[in-house]
């Protein structure tokens, strides 16, 4: 008995020394694997699902150089609900951003382009007024300077706390995309996990080329809303990138480890 107890204690001591996050589980295929196997791209070694990453990581994987613009832009002070303000505060601390999207001018080799990366850690990448303003200004700058634009979307949709003003961003950004397009400039939309709601229903689906990563969740309505409406469970894969590709709404699914080289080619060929 005593022997057993001490063995258990030893085992516990050993277990305590193992860091909690040594093993990770893929949220898509549920495979468990040693964290190191995620590699620098944070891809599942089994199914190639791209784990959610923040803006700094994404930019470092895509750009050789990056200069942010409009970094100081913040949401208007007329949104003064305390709960909302504390959410903004928390998101700012976690991401180091003032708003849910990082925008700027990036370079792959000698090719310059406008780049926006929505950060899911910032109130679920929701589209607020300042998010919309940053995206609009990026498109406007790139229209003026004849630069292509790449947007990495990741969003739960419109930002509820900003109400109808958030909805209007869908129109505002869409017009900036249209003006950029009229000048014959290229816009590549990369839909990353998850891209839903008002972002899917606006600029994420307005690219000349719309691409995604394996198994990315892409949809308009949320799964629970649909379940409630139709009183049925939709198929497991119904809002995944592969289904959208099959149904004709994506140009390609590109693994994260191949994203930079793919973008480099598309930017060079247009």
């Amino acid at each position: 008995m005593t022997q057993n107890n001490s063995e258990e204690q030893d085992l516990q001591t050993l277990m305590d020394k193992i860091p909690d996050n040594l093993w990770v589980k893929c949220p898509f295929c549920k495979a468990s694997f040693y964290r190191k196997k995620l590699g620098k791209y944070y891809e599942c070694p089994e199914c190639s699902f791209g784990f959610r990453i923040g803006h700094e990581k994404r930019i470092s994987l895509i750009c050789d150089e990056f200069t942010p613009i409009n970094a100081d832009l913040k949401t208007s002070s007329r949104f003064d609900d305390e709960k909302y303000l504390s959410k903004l505060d928390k998101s700012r601390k976690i991401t180091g951003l003032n708003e849910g999207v990082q925008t700027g001018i990036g370079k792959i080799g000698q090719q310059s382009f406008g780049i926006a990366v929505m950060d899911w850690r910032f109130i679920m990448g929701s589209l607020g007024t300042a998010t919309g303003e940053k995206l609009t200004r990026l498109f406007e700058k790139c229209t003026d300077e004849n630069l292509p634009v790449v947007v990495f979307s990741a969003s739960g949709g419109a930002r509820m706390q900003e109400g109808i003003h958030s909805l209007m961003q869908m129109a505002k950004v869409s017009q900036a995309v249209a003006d950029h397009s009229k000048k014959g400039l290229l816009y590549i939309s990369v839909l990353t996990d998850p891209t839903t709601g008002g972002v899917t229903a606006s600029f994420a689906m307005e690219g000349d080329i719309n691409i995604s990563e394996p198994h990315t969740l892409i949809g308009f309505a949320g799964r629970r809303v649909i379940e409630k409406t139709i009183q049925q469970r939709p198929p497991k894969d119904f809002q995944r990138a592969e289904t959208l590709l099959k149904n004709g709404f994506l140009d390609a699914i590109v693994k994260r480890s191949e994203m930079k080289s793919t973008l480099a080619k598309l930017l060079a060929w247009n």
Partner: protein
Amino acid sequence: MTKSAYDRVMAARSSNKISIHDLVAGLTDDFIELHGDRAYGDDPAVYAGIGTIDGLPVTITSIQKGFDTDSNIERHFGSAEPDGYRKALRLMKQAEKFNRPIINLINTPGAYPGVDAEYHGQGYMIAQSIMQGLNLSVPYISIIVGEGGSGGALALAVGDCVWAMENSVYSILSPEGYATILWKDSSRAAEAAEQMGLTPEDLIENGIIDKIIPEVCDTETINSLKNELLKKINELKKLPKDELLDNRHKRYRKFN
């Protein structure tokens, strides 16, 4: 007595509200419904066609609720599918080709949340309706008749002006949905409605809508709306196309 925001939500949803059919019939001298999206189907929630108002040809597209249980089921209670938006966009582009003004009448709780709707590109079609709609070079007027629900309403409300009937609401989400997301409690819908700023008075203050029109319920109110529409169309028709579009784009650029 002032109505609470939630009373307004109820009035916007009321079955006594004028139907889109009756509204179209009242506004036009004659009207021919046109069907189909030329790609997949014909969504009965989207009622659209060509008619004349005092002899002036116009294209009307609309999202309508049903008048009884059967028609409500068929029209998903006024929630359009992607083929509905595709039909509306097709006819709006046709209007541009023939230099006809566009009038959009909106009464929808939101775009339909269904599996097929997702398969057929609900998000894509709303996005395209917005982006292409913003650039149609003919007068484009939208009226929120009852409910203006989220992206499903915005898809048909990106023109030169957006008007709203007295008993209407326009919002990012239903108050029930908003209460569920923010407070995990759909029974707090009335409180949500107050907070959301969804009444025509709130919306006009924020420049989301441009005019509140008296509730249309009889010949007199219909005629008055008809006159307002003709007046606005004539005003917009006088503008060179560049200026028309420039003004329209500025209208949406200002939302910060």
